[in-house]
């Protein structure tokens, strides 16, 4: 498929998401918001996990931190959009400082550290009761308007965030930074030796992967109007996002978009039909993905697949 056609398809997909309030009920609009939200998170993860190939499992830490960093200023009287910007900035700075420390680790140790980060931030937030409300959670000022008006607003917001992250992804992909990151992904020592400033690039990638999670988290907090530690810092989310990225194709520009959409639509279908077994089905999707789609949906050569199927069905005497 030519590159331009892919982008046309992407534009059509964004339009379809954005136009849901016109042709569908609130339930579908909600699904569209969730898809846009996870697409933004997956695109963010792609910077560190896809381009740089670092197994980061700290998405939920940044998302949850964004929830709180967006909610607390709002409760202190800061206007909503400014609070989101503050949350983005805060989470970005947090990740940059942290990245300098934990990006020295590699492989399994980095994975464990990023996992632990989610737990540490969650524990700190839930034990800091007088600021964050602890386990009781925190109310966030609601956006005025009826349910469908609010849904439309946040659909717009999430799609806007998604498009911003997408634009940044394209920029990174075509820049020196993107090239350096893919060098790191292939062989970090060699990249270091030929003069790629690996530490700086990794910190950039980590910061990029975190700050938009902060924006998404802050917007999510305003959307739901209530946050608590167990909802904001979910281990499931921290693994779901990498899985979505792998499903689409890590390290590509459109892979995260395809992966998030495919995963969430599948999940929606299974939630609706097999409520009790939804986690097991999520697990089964992961197992199938690892074994049968190691490169993601985008790496499959569909034209090849199609021509092979056609050839097989038209071959004389192929079926007895």
């Amino acid at each position: 498929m030519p590159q331009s056609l892919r982008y046309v398809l992407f534009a059509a997909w964004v339009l379809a998401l954005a136009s849901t309030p016109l042709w569908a009920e609130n339930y579908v609009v909600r699904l569209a918001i969730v898809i846009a939200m996870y697409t933004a998170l997956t695109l963010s993860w792609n910077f560190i996990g896809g381009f740089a190939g670092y197994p980061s499992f700290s998405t939920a830490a940044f998302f949850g931190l964004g929830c709180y960093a967006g909610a607390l200023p709002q409760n202190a009287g800061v206007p909503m959009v400014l609070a989101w910007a503050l949350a983005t900035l805060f989470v970005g700075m947090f990740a940059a400082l942290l990245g300098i420390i934990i990006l020295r680790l590699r492989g399994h140790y980095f994975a464990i550290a990023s996992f632990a980060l989610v737990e540490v931030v969650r524990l700190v937030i839930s034990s800091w009761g007088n600021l964050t409300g602890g386990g009781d959670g925190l109310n966030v000022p609601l956006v005025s308007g009826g349910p469908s008006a609010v849904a439309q607003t946040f659909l717009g917001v999430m799609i806007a965030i998604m498009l911003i992250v997408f634009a940044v992804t394209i920029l990174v992909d075509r820049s020196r930074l993107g090239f350096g990151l893919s060098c790191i992904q292939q062989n970090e020592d060699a990249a270091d030796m030929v003069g790629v400033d690996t530490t700086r690039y990794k910190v950039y990638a980590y910061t990029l992967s975190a700050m938009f999670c902060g924006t998404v988290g802050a917007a999510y907090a305003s959307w739901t109007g209530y946050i608590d530690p167990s909802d904001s810092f979910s281990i499931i989310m921290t693994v779901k996002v990498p899985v979505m990225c792998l499903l689409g194709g890590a390290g590509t520009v459109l892979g995260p978009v395809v992966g998030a959409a495919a995963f969430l639509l599948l999940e929606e279908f299974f939630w609706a039909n097999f409520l009790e077994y939804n986690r097991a089905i999520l697990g089964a999707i992961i197992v199938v993905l690892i074994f049968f789609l190691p490169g993601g949906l985008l790496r499959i050569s569909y034209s090849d697949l199609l021509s092979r199927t056609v050839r097989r069905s038209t071959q004389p005497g192929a079926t007895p």
Partner: protein
Amino acid sequence: MFHLQTLVNGVVLGALYACLAVGFSLVWGVLNVINMLHGSLIILGGYLTFFAWHSFGVNPIIALPGVALVLYIIGYLTQFLVINRIVNQPVLTTLTLTFGLDLILYNFMTVYYTATPVRVTLDLGVVDFGGVVMPIDRLLGMVLALVLTGILYLVMRSSRLGRAIVAVRMDRTAAKLMGIRVHRIYAITYGIGALMAGAAGAVFAMVYPVTTNLTGAFLGKAFVVCVIGGLGSVLGALVGGLVLGVIESFAGQFFGPQHALTVGFLLMLVLLVVKPTGLTGIKGFE
């Protein structure tokens, strides 16, 4: 006296932590796989013990070897049929796969056993030793945990199989050249990891309530113990477990129980950065 009680609590807790983490540490060290399934395997062991006790009146100590055997078979098959196919891939792949398997096991346990906490109550009373009070079932748990860890240590030290496992951990290519069937060792190692998880679950069922909600907490403990103590060795898990148990016990005493967990995780993050090989660690495994 006050601090002595805290210390004793910490040591008892630490022995349980060591038993809980030793299988995880072995799998990580030998297979280079972060086994996200470990927490659920512990809980599965706990449930099997509970139901043996509840439905058939089997004493947990007698049930323990049976539970361990069942878990060994499950672990061996899981590794042999599933994980071995991708065992040499990067951590993102192996970790994600074991997480997927964990979701499946977790889901089935929640459906069949429900999440209601259950516990084996032995009611053995308490022992009062010069002002230090300790329930006997906990003491029994500690002794069992130490015995199990000790058995594993002996097996790794002195049996042919144990030496083969250690050889694979040190250099899988060289081990292969020496005639060790590496993939079978992987399966056996994972089986032993699951066996230790099951045994730890059986011990825990005597001391704490068993519920599927605890899988994540147990897994987190295993992470922390491994990083503190150093990877892949029984001794490392023992040191890590005891250190974590004592630190958590004192942190709970001084800062309040809600901060005990945070202190453990923070210690782990610091150690990861300062000394990723752990307190007993050998270089070359980071």
